């Protein structure tokens, strides 16, 4: 049952501040120990670069503005191999340019984080307006068949928390992690009380414990994870975008290639419970579920509160990790609902995943709300859709 608490007017405690989404990402980067940023500033992500250009040099870090996003992504990979937690931030057009090197980070198992503050596309599109057109690009944008971890915050506070989490996952699983944001969240400000970084568990990459001559750059354990030496620490290793053996040298032996591609996949699927996060809001007795990510979920929550006031049993499922897709949790939570409403700021991306996971439902049980004109989906549009299906 929905918890309808009547709260007395509450004053905020004194440490609350007004903070912007992009600012929260930059702050989290500094707090989690990022020492390198290479990028090519682009709206609506520019503030991340702007802030880090000032902050990194003051925190023993390096900021480089590169000539484009291809070189930015390559520089980030190089810096990470040298041992620095590395970050870049971009938007759709730059994200496309980064895709090849993103694949290199995946196959070379180099930790790094890419923030994509999405705008309306395709191409230059609407630089200052929101869009959720990169949901599939974040998963499938790079060629080949690589793994993907993609996180998606819905608030300024969560932008901070998920930036830290993105680095933790990238360090732990030795892969690039993508933080997808909405233009509105990147640019908006809200009152936040951020927990001190000491309240978070910060994960750093596993270092080799063997002497340098025994070191293998890709020596996996039972969880498909492997320690990572940095350049300059006395360990010799080879890094390539070619398929490689445990030492990192190119191979075309099917057995060795199979070990490599299996590890790329298994380190995600074997550890999926550690990677996936999903929020369930008023779902306990819900007959209608809204499935939404990022800023759209906030319109959904407003709509749900209004509908709940009228006794309508509706709730929200919101993945914080959108890739790997939280299949198990979504299937379980949608089993008992009659209708699923999928609002998204594009012409249909999340909907495909929901259709895939709800084979028991008919077409009329799945309701689309799609908007790709630069405007947000409003609470009222979602509310109307709820009224139509109940």
């Amino acid at each position, binding site marked *: 049952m929905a918890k309808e608490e009547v709260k007395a007017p509450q004053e*905020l405690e004194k440490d609350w*501040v007004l903070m912007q989404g992009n600012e929260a990402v930059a702050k989290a980067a500094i707090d989690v120990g990022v020492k390198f940023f290479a990028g090519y500033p682009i709206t609506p992500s520019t503030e991340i670069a702007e802030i880090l250009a000032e902050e990194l040099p003051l925190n023993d870090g390096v900021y480089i503005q590169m000539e484009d996003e291809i070189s930015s992504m390559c520089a980030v990979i190089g810096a990470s191999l040298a041992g620095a937690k590395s970050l870049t931030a971009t938007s759709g057009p730059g994200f496309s340019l980064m895709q090849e090197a993103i694949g290199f980070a995946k196959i070379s198992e180099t930790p790094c984080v890419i923030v994509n503050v999405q705008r309306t596309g395709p191409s230059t599109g609407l630089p*200052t307006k929101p869009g959720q057109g990169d949901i599939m690009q974040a998963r499938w944008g790079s060629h080949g068949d690589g793994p993907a971890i993609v996180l998606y915050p819905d608030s300024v506070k969560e932008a901070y928390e998920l930036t830290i989490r993105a680095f933790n996952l990238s360090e732990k699983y030795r892969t690039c992690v993508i933080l997808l944001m909405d233009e509105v969240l990147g640019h*908006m400000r*809200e*009152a936040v009380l951020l927990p001190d970084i000491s309240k978070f568990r910060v994960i750093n990459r596993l270092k080799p414990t063997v002497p340098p001559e025994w070191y293998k750059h890709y020596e996996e354990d039972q969880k498909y994870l492997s320690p990572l030496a940095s350049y300059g620490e006395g360990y010799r290793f080879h890094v390539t975008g070619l398929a490689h053996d445990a030492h990192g040298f190119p191979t075309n032996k099917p057995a060795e290639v199979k070990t490599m591609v299996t590890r790329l996949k298994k380190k995600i699927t074997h550890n999926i419970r550690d990677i996936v996060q999903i929020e369930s809001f008023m779902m306990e007795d819900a007959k209608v579920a809204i499935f939404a990510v990022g800023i759209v979920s906030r319109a959904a929550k407003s709509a749900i509160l209004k509908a709940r006031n009228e006794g309508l049993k509706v709730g929200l499922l919101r993945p914080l990790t959108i890739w790997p897709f939280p299949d198990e949790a979504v299937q379980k939570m949608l089993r008992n609902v009659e209708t699923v409403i999928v609002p998204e700021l594009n012409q249909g991306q999340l909907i495909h995943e929901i259709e895939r996971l709800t084979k028991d439902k008919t077409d009329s049980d799945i309701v689309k709300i799609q908007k790709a004109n630069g405007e947000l989906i409003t609470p009222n549009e979602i509310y109307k859709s709820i009224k139509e299906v109940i």
Partner: protein
Amino acid sequence: MSKNKKCDKHEVRLSGSGGQGLILAGIILARAAVHDKKRVTQSQSYGPESRGGASRADVIVSCEEIYYPEATRFDILLALTQEACDKFLFDLREEGILVVDNSIVKNISLLSSKIYEVPFTEIALEQLGSSLPTNILSLAFLVKISGIVSEQSLKKAIEESVRSAFIDVNLKAMKLGFDLAKKYK
């Protein structure tokens, strides 16, 4: 906005064109709300141009969690261009406050007792020597009229949000806005 109903949610839209400083005004208003220990969101919409084009800032103040960050039904609407006034007027709540710069906005197709027509740009030019602080002048006016944030929090927020060289002129604009509001109240 009576004082005993503190938990009411208030939605404010500051609208006009790019370059008028509306987003900065929105940030200042939001920061003032935090100083008042309220929950607040400030969002914005603008075009790719540095100047010109429609621009707006939305500020929502509440003591509860705010989900949707854009203003949909305004308690206060500031319109500094005719286009903005025409576009947003009908989303003003029945009891909402409309503040316009009547040196720019000439037609208001709405009858309400809560319309304030003030030539902010002209006043800024005459009394502050520049049209630049029009944003703070009109913001201070609507703060005084509505009481949405306290005057001392607004002052603090201005001091924190503008470069030190411009604090004096903006504080002058704020005071002028407060004084103007007394005349119109």
